[in-house]
């Protein structure tokens, strides 16, 4: 495929960061919640939706994005936040509810906003879809070749916002890439019990846009399909709907008993781990020496450790800070004429 080695290694590194991040988060989340689980207790309170196993879709898509491109994500946002380049320390601090967090502790893990890399997400299913369409509308009005990506689960493809967003983007030929993460479960309900078609990519036909299904939770397959979709959007040829089969290795949220999973499913999924597969690929194709891969893994772990340390050491916001930031205090800078042209 002719992908530069540096990029392959960077993608491997990003996947390792994500996996390690989610595993450390899973451990950290349990602090103060044992032996009795109380969602409001411990180092990291509140709901926690982890994305371990879904690394290929996040990394394979975001590898094509620039800092200025927009991403609108979901309630399970860590993997694509990391892949998009969200500041890991401030993101972790936000998830801990610390004053150094992206939102100074006002949003938490489902509401991560990093305007520096044009990243946002939402705890409401499918809500980011029309917002990505709007970002793409802005990009076209600004006469740029920036693109907008929205990630959402296969369960979100049954929401009205999905269909409204696809229709608008197709109608206006906007530079949007709709990425369905098919992890097979909308909390407990499997795709075949919620969705009338096997592949959401087929639904693209209803809006006259390309629909692509990528199976196997494979990084390079995602990378290739996303590259095509992003290039198409940058050329002004309109949106693409991309559905990626991926695997959720943890529960819907931490504390989910996962009674809906067939016995042995997680073990089977772990046996075809996409990160291990990609590692083997890099070594067997002699794309990177094992020592370099090991170093990369070490660096990845180090950056996660630093982010968690930063979050732990940071202070909580003063309680009365709750009253701030409902509104910003500014009005228009009146530089619009120059800002757009």
């Amino acid at each position, binding site marked *: 495929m002719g992908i530069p080695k540096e990029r392959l290694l960077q993608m491997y590194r990003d996947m390792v960061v994500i996996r390690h991040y989610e595993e450390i988060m899973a451990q950290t989340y349990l602090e103060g919640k044992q032996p009795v689980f109380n969602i409001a207790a411990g180092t990291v309170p509140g709901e926690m939706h982890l994305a371990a196993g879904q690394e290929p879709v996040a990394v394979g898509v975001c590898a094509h994005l620039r800092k200025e491109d*927009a991403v*609108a994500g979901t309630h399970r946002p860590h993997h694509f936040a990391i892949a998009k380049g969200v500041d890991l320390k401030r993101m972790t601090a936000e998830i801990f509810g610390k004053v150094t*967090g*992206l*939102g*100074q*502790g*006002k*949003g938490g893990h489902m*509401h991560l*906003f990093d*305007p520096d890399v*044009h990243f*946002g997400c*939402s705890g*409401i299913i499918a*809500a980011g*879809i*029309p*917002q*990505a*369409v*709007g*970002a*793409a*509308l*802005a*990009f076209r*009005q*600004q006469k740029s070749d920036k693109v*907008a990506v929205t990630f959402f689960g296969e369960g979100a493809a049954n929401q*009205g*916002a999905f269909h*409204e*967003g696809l*229709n*608008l983007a197709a*109608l206006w030929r906007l530079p949007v890439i709709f990425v369905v993460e098919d992890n097979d479960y909308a909390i407990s309900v499997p795709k075949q019990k919620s969705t009338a078609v096997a592949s959401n990519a087929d639904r693209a036909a209803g809006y006259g846009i390309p629909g692509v299904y990528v199976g196997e939770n494979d990084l390079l397959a995602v990378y290739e399909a996303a590259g095509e979709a992003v290039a198409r959007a940058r050329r002004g040829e309109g949106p693409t709907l991309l559905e990626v089969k991926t695997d959720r290795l943890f529960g819907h949220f931490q504390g989910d008993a996962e009674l809906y999973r067939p016995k042995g499913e997680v073990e089977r999924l772990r046996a075809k781990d996409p990160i291990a597969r990609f590692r083997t690929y890099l070594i067997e194709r002699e794309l990177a020496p094992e020592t370099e891969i090991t170093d990369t893994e070490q660096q990845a772990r180090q950056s996660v450790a630093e982010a968690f340390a930063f979050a732990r050491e940071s202070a909580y916001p003063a309680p009365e800070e709750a009253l*701030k*930031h*409902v*509104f*910003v205090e*500014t*009005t*228009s800078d*009146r530089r*619009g*004429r120059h*800002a*757009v*042209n």
Partner: protein
Amino acid sequence: MLSINADRKLTMSKAITEAIAQEMEQDERVFVLGEDVGIYGGIFSSTAGLLEKFGPERVIDTPISETGFIGAALGAAMEGMRPIAELMFVDFFGVCMDQIYNHIAKNTYFAGGHMKVPLVLMTATGGGYNDAGQHSQSLWGTFAHLPGLKVVVPSTPYDAKGLMTQAIRDDNPVLFMFHKGLMGLGWMTLVKDATGHVPEEAYAIPFGQADVKREGTDVTIVSVSMGVYHALEAARELEREGISAEVIDLRTLVPLDREAVVRSVKKTHRLLVVDEDYLSYGMSGEIAATVAERAFDYLDAPVRRLAVPDVPIPFARPLEQFVLPDAPKIVAAVKELLNS
């Protein structure tokens, strides 16, 4: 300097479009989107003439897809644009409320103030023309209740222009709620005095400043939008009977000029709140509570409220007229207030 040509009179719809056009000329980030905002000019003429002036790239007719285009307005605002999205009737908010109250209203807060959402959501309110319960509501109390939205409810063309200009320049989401009956539309009953002086030059009216429409000493009548006209008509009637009513137009519900109400009640010692929105849990309760908290000792009589009595807006003329506030009902309520 504002023009002093007092003869320049505009309808509210023309005042609104003039404000939008002037800001669009000034700032290319400002654009309009919504249903029938283009060649139709807005069902209530709130965007008339803008398509001809600015073209289809900046005045965008959308499909009937409110979650889609209002969500898109938010996405565009977060990427540096300054959209004005029209929700044709406020009654339609139910099909897109998630984008409004969970996202437009909250994203700045979630971001710890590090992200602006400069967006105007313009919508039509009010009844009195037999359009029944899904096209006649006011609902400003619902939106004012939810944190994160500024809520503007103008009663005059002058205020509508200045408040729309302010809304477009504000870096926060603003819900701009005009009353269909005050737009000066040829196909509705015209309200006398609702066409008024509007300077040609651009000007902004700061939010959170109530306007004392008429000074008085015996009772304070607080209202917004169409209710202000009913209150003024009632005040003229009451004057003939020797009762002096002060009429306050709040103009914006968020931010709310509580001090103007308190100041007036300390002078008149009596309060009537007139609201075309529902009675319970709304604007009238909020104003009454403010006075109870800050001017209780000044009251000579219990606070009175005149609002839609917690029923959907009915269709038939006698039914609808029965539930909506009007001048005779205000006169009667004030007399009761003075006799209590």
